[in-house]
């Protein structure tokens, strides 16, 4: 037995002992939560069997979690409950007296078609279901993006550059508005694909990328707070709820 293996057995022994002691002192549930938290944090040092364990457990359990959720929250009330209400009356009594909706056969059929792709011969038929989903969203996207991302944003940018306030001309606000206006125009120039970024056009594109970079820096800096808060939350769990070191 080499040194590395010996070390890993020692660590395993420590983890097991700590786990048992923790269960005795703090209870089972909080211990499980705390150890899984530590397992994930151990990835920061390097990949290791404990992280692998937590990762694989997480993947399997979460996939099943959403499957069950989908079944009880969508299939039962919205598919079976509408196709034939008495069938799910035991689970969702509120639906008992609703009329049956034969139209719900369509998603049932499309759903089964989708599952056909598990067969190598009839796999192509699953594309019908796919086409349905893609088509629905494509149509929706066309108008939605045009309205909220295009027309609305242009509308928001149409404002007066020259700003006055109670005491007359407001230099600061005017400069800000000019910068927003120029920034939007230069930003749009940067995104031109079919024109070479040369001359005045190139200068506009370069200004555009400057504005983009300032924005990216600012967003990055702003997010630090949110991420630290999350870490504080985990530390409060470990040192407070579990170890009881925070009053």
């Amino acid at each position: 037995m080499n040194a590395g293996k010996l070390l890993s057995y020692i660590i395993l022994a420590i983890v097991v002992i700590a786990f048992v002691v923790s269960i005795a002192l703090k209870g089972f549930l909080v211990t499980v939560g705390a150890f899984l938290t530590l397992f994930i944090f151990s990835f920061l040092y390097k990949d290791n069997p404990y992280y692998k364990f937590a990762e694989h457990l997480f993947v399997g359990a979460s996939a099943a979690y959403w499957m069950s959720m989908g079944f009880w929250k969508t299939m039962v009330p919205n598919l079976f409950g509408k196709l034939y209400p008495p069938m799910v009356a035991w689970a969702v009594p509120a639906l008992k007296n609703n009329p049956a909706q034969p139209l719900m056969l369509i998603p049932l059929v499309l759903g089964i078609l989708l599952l056909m792709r598990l067969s190598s011969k009839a796999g192509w038929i699953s594309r019908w279901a796919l086409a349905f989903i893609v088509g629905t969203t494509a149509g929706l996207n066309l108008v939605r993006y045009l309205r909220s991302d295009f027309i609305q944003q242009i509308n928001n940018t149409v404002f007066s550059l020259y700003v006055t306030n109670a005491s007359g001309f407001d230099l600061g606000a005017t400069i800000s508005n000019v910068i927003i206006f120029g920034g939007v125009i230069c930003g749009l120039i940067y995104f031109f694909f079919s024109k070479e970024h040369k001359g005045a056009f190139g200068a506009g594109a370069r200004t555009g990328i400057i504005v983009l970079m300032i924005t990216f820096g600012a967003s990055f800096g702003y997010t630090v707070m949110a991420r630290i808060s999350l870490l504080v939350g985990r530390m409060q769990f470990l040192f407070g709820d579990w170890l009881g070191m925070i009053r």
Partner: protein
Amino acid sequence: MKDRLKLVVFLTVIAFIIQATVAFAQSEGETADSVISEQPVTPPPKPVIVSGEDIPNDNGHKLKLNWEYPAEWNDSIVRFEIYRADSPDGDFRRLGEAAGGIFSYLDIGSKKKDDPNYMPNDQNLYYRVDAVSKSGVTVQSEIGGPFQTSGQWFHKGKVPVLIGVVLFAIFTIYFIRSARKGKDLYIRPLAGIEAVDEAIGRATEMGKPILYVLGIGGASDIATIASFTILGRVAKKVAEYQTALTVPCYDPIVMSVAQDVVRSAYLEAGRPDQYSDDLVFFVTNAQFAYVAGINGIMVRDLPATNFYLGYFAAESLILAETGNSIGAIQIAGTDQITQIPFFVVACDYTLIGEELYAASAYLGRDPLLLGALKAEDWGKAIAMVLIIVGVLATAFGWDAFREFLRVNL
């Protein structure tokens, strides 16, 4: 009619008595005379229903009722109660109330037949407004109507959107046609796209796999669809070079599509035997479990090149930093504005927003896709012109322009 008049008189008298008693009880010191002389003796007048307007640009079932009432009575009316029935002598249902001094009410009915508040379209509706005075006297209006509501065939507030759709369609069709005719369209180089080949080549040289992450979007998200096209190109190159490819998926439908895309690409490259469904597999559709899984793949398989193209949320930086720690070349692209900064900071190349959508045209050089790209540029030119003209118009105090661009929902 006479009965009603009698009723009003009767109610007024009763109200008068109650009021007088209460006022007397409250002001023990004062004489009864002074109290009586200050109260208006005449009964409140009837509200007069003027109009019932159908609300435009909707599916019907909504009506704005207007009535008139003498202004000098504003202070003595507590509220108006609004009633509706489907015939003048039918059963009037109380809908709601408006405070004194307000002379209109928006009646929002239900479109469901079994709802007690059901309000049919294109049928006669009758209304009654009761004025309730401070002293508790209720005066009913004459019955107003018939009024009708109806659904419209076109929402006029959405005209700018319709114009946009039509214009954009014309541009796209025009440029696709001219691209088909063989007109050479210039497109400026994109560093992220030019690096794709180099990145695949590097993985081949090192004998390491390539990791392609489609993000956590659904199969119909625009970013995911753009990513499918890029995946097709990457997979074809990968098949030609005989490099390993791993595509872990978040959404099962995205997985099925990605399997089709990769299989077709291998077929095109003449290596269908190299493909198996295990190259493109499902991890889980829980955001952080998916990331945990990909992190595991990265540190164990040590890919030389990572692609993150599609829809990403908070996980973007976890992926990019883990990828960086294993020394992989990373090419990222997303249309999620909040995540672009993290990709820009932690990856070698980043396709920002629209650049991701454009990538498919760049890689394929398909005239159809290039034509559409040209149409997008024209859209941007129009956006710039609209903004500049709009700002100028506002400077000259001409607000009609801005109004025109407003979508009224």
